[in-house]
């Protein structure tokens, strides 16, 4: 069992579905941070069986849309002086801009390389989003 000490100041992203931690790590650009970041994978969990967990020793402004897209079941705890001061539960965002790309090869966004494409949530159960240009469904 690996032990990682509690952080004094920063953010804990908990209850990440096992296997999704690295995706979140990448999408939030945590590899580019100079602060301490710990990604734990396949941690035993009573509720989930196994889960991933990320601890960030930084007051980073986290893009909750990205997290909601990848894993709406994850929870965010903000830590100050070793104590949790705020806990946030995620929901899939209604719209996301500039995060998803359209996978429809017939969509104009794949010819024009548009970076600020807006996607609308069409099915919260499966976390599916529709491209504002061609309506094709996609997920992260």
């Amino acid at each position, binding site marked *: 069992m690996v032990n990682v000490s509690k952080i004094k100041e920063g953010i804990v992203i908990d209850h990440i579905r096992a296997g999704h931690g690295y995706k979140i790590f990448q999408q939030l650009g945590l590899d580019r941070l100079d602060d301490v970041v710990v990604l734990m994978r396949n941690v035993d969990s009573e509720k989930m069986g196994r889960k991933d967990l990320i601890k960030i020793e930084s007051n980073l402004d986290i893009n909750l849309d990205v997290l909601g897209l990848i894993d709406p079941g994850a929870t965010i705890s903000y830590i100050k002086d070793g104590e949790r001061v705020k806990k946030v539960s995620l929901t899939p965002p209604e719209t996301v801009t500039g995060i998803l790309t359209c996978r429809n090869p017939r969509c104009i966004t794949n*010819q024009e390389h548009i970076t600020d494409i807006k996607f609308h949530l069409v099915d919260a159960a499966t976390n599916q989003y529709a491209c504002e*240009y061609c309506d094709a469904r996609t997920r992260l």
Partner: protein
Amino acid sequence: MLKNRSLIAPSDLTLEEIEELMRLSEKILQTPERYAAVCRGKLMASLFYEPSTRTKFSFDAAMLRLGGNTLGFSDPNTSSTAKGETIADSARTIGKYADLIVVRHPKEGTAKLMSRYAGIPVINAGDGGHHHPTQTLTDLLTIRHYKGSYSGLTVGVCGDLKFGRTIHSLVTCLARYENVRFLFISPEELTMPAFVKEELNAKGVSYTETTDLEGAISQLDVLYMSRVQRERFISEEEYLRLKDYFILTAEKMQLAKSDMIVMHPLPRINEIATDVDSDPRAAYFEQVRYGMFVRMALIMKLLGAEEPA
């Protein structure tokens, strides 16, 4: 208010706005000469990045009959796109010359992209397999003209229901009206896609699926035909077995109601036999004419042109 808006998808229009367009179309249809100068001095850019003689002619004729002018191309090799210009830049540039853009493009979402940058109204004249809203308006005007209203109608759509975008748009648009019932007549390989049926289910709209045109035709007020394409079948045998099932002939028309109308987005290949053409219930060539009138009404509304006194 439709003034200065773009039309990208049929769902951009409320039922009230559709009604507004239908009323104006019918007025134009009755006395087109009264509208011969309402768009004088206005310029419409018709940008056809893929060939579509019929739709381009319809839009051009509509604008010219309103007294406006047109410019544009029907071969993308003659446009700046051939030099590598982006759609966004083309829209910005053309928006400085014209008052209205009509665009057809093989890529889905192109009209929407143009509308973002043009600064003038954009009409989607077809973006790949996605939307073709003025075809839907054409179909609605045709049905309204022959049937008076949409409520209570039994509408049969026949042929390639899987890939027929005009059919998807028409069905989802008609489903917004009360008490419309659908019969989906197609080979099993080409049935109505789930997303259309899901929408009908959610609205509680009644529909039946069948492979039997002859068995269904007597129930219909409107029969909307489309082409069954050979290339959609994996097995040639299956195609040969089914193809004649979906050809409308004068013989099959004997089974239909005396006031049923037959529609088709055209061009037809062989799915409506030529012996149906002389039947007074054949509305498909008139449908083309209504297409021009509804485009005249749409252009007027988007440009904010005043109705003649």
